[in-house]
């Protein structure tokens, strides 16, 4: 049964419309019988309305320059950190991001793969995670081991049978694609400030089309309960096209030219 303490915890999400229907219904039921909580929710709504009516603030012209300079300093400082810090950040990052792919992959695929999602340290550290910046911006590439393949089964070593192993490997492949997309998307936010509105619109349309195709493909996979690597070929082709497009924009500085 929902109580006043729960209301305090859930009120923000409820007012923002972020609370799921079942818990919203339970909360509304409690508000019918608890005047204190009803008043609390009303206050919250009034506060949001007042905030929404405030005039937007124009930031000082030099604010962004200052932020940009600060970001550059921080990035340089991050680049000079040791590998241990990078490993740690990577672990944190993997844990943080796993909510996204698990949701996106659809019920069937996610259910099959979920058992592999929990461990965060299973991915080998990226070989070129962050080249250290030395002196006046000179980059010393991180010492990476030579290219090897196939990847050691490390993360999938616990698989009991062939089918489990393949599922685990598919999950790792999904994750590799999604991590690349996420990394490029994060970098894109910085790059696109220099684009024209037309370039940005064209780029966004191209990305949206690929996202739609990926969603359709994920639904198809979920519906079929498909669980072989070959089933994922169309999905991976879409991911590759998206990575190409993002790389052209982020690395090549060409926002509107597809492959």
């Amino acid at each position, binding site marked *: 049964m929902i109580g006043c303490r729960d209301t305090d915890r859930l009120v923000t999400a409820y007012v923002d419309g972020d609370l799921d229907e079942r818990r919203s219904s339970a909360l509304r039921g409690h508000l019918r019988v608890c005047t204190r909580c009803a008043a609390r929710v009303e206050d919250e709504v009034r506060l949001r309305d007042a905030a929404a009516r405030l005039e937007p603030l124009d930031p000082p012209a030099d604010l962004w320059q200052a932020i940009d300079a600060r970001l550059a300093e921080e990035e340089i400082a991050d680049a000079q950190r040791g590998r241990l810090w990078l490993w740690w950040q990577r672990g944190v990052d993997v844990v943080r991001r796993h909510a996204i792919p698990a949701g996106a992959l659809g019920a069937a695929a996610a259910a099959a793969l979920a058992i592999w999602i929990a461990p965060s340290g299973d991915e080998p550290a990226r070989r070129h995670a962050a080249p250290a910046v030395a002196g006046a911006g000179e980059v010393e*590439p991180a010492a990476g081991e030579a290219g090897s393949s196939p990847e050691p089964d490390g993360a999938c070593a616990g698989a*009991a049978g*062939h089918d*489990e192993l*393949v599922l685990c*490997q598919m999950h790792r492949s999904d994750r590799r694609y999604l991590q690349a997309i996420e990394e490029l998307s994060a*970098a894109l936010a910085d790059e696109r400030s220099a684009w024209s509105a037309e370039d940005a619109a064209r780029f966004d349309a191209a990305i949206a089309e690929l996202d739609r195709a990926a969603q359709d493909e994920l639904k198809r996979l979920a519906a079929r309960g498909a669980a072989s690597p070959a089933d994922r070929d169309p999905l991976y082709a879409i991911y590759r096209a998206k990575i190409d497009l993002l*790389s*052209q924009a*982020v690395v090549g500085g060409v926002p509107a030219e597809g492959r």
Partner: protein
Amino acid sequence: MRAIQATWSLACGLLALLAAPPVTRAQPPSQPQPPSQPQAPRSGGVVERDVVELAPARGARIERIDIDNRLGDVKIEGHDREALSIIAVKRAPDQETLERLKVSLVPDPGGAVMVSTSLLAGLEARPIPAGSVRIDLIVKAPRSAQVQAQVWKGRIAVSGVENGAELVTDDGDIAVSEVTGAVSTHSGHGRQTFARVFGAIDARALEGDLDLDVVRGDRVAAVVQEGQVNGRRVAVRELSVLVTRGSISIEGEAMAGGRYRVASYWGNVQVKLGGKAPLHVRAHSREGRVSLPRRFRPRTAHDGVVTATYGAGGTAADIDLRTRVGSITLAEF
């Protein structure tokens, strides 16, 4: 060892499915390894080596070979014969499982041959131990055939073909040598090497280094998410190398009217060019140094972009070098 000779008649228009019968059975793992040196089964197990040969009917040609092997490595060698020869090395924990490993060969009347491998469904009373089944393929194909190969966790090696190749591996190295035509590759994880390739290269990698040595032709386009790109003796009209995290080193020749874009988001960019074409250079490093040969007389614009022109006469080669965090070095021979 036994070979099956299948005669392929294009006129009949039928698809033939051939699965070679076992040849060598129950070899202990201590037996000599097959040429591809695949991993041995985890413990004990049986190994079988099958050979299939497919010869087209008189006057017909094998124009395309599509290989789909999600169970191991693929090695393709071009040869001067018209026949297709396939060596399949199967590994399984026991005889029963071994018999479930199949290689299918489907010739199409249009001149394509599809080769695929599969693990047939079994009763699964007891699951197959992870990593205990494997099929490695060694394919000898007519040089003129166009090649397509896809593997899952395995290596792909292609050599001696003259009509291009399309190669995809999720996790494994790709090695391309002595190949003419358009070559397209993708690797999720693994090193890619291209040696003596004449034509066009489209290479994609998520994690892994790219190595180019003696590449000539129209185009090299490489997109690498994380890895180093090293190129030596590269002479193409259009070059586009984009690396998100990793450094790039390219040594080659600039052609008149050529376009060369070499960019890393997070890494050094080093380009060393020869050739007689005049050069028009644009270089930009947001957080690093840009070094150009002194006689280029570089000019730095307000936004940090360095431009320079060198040489005169003829159409200039256009060179665009970028990095966000790293240094840029352009040198000449």
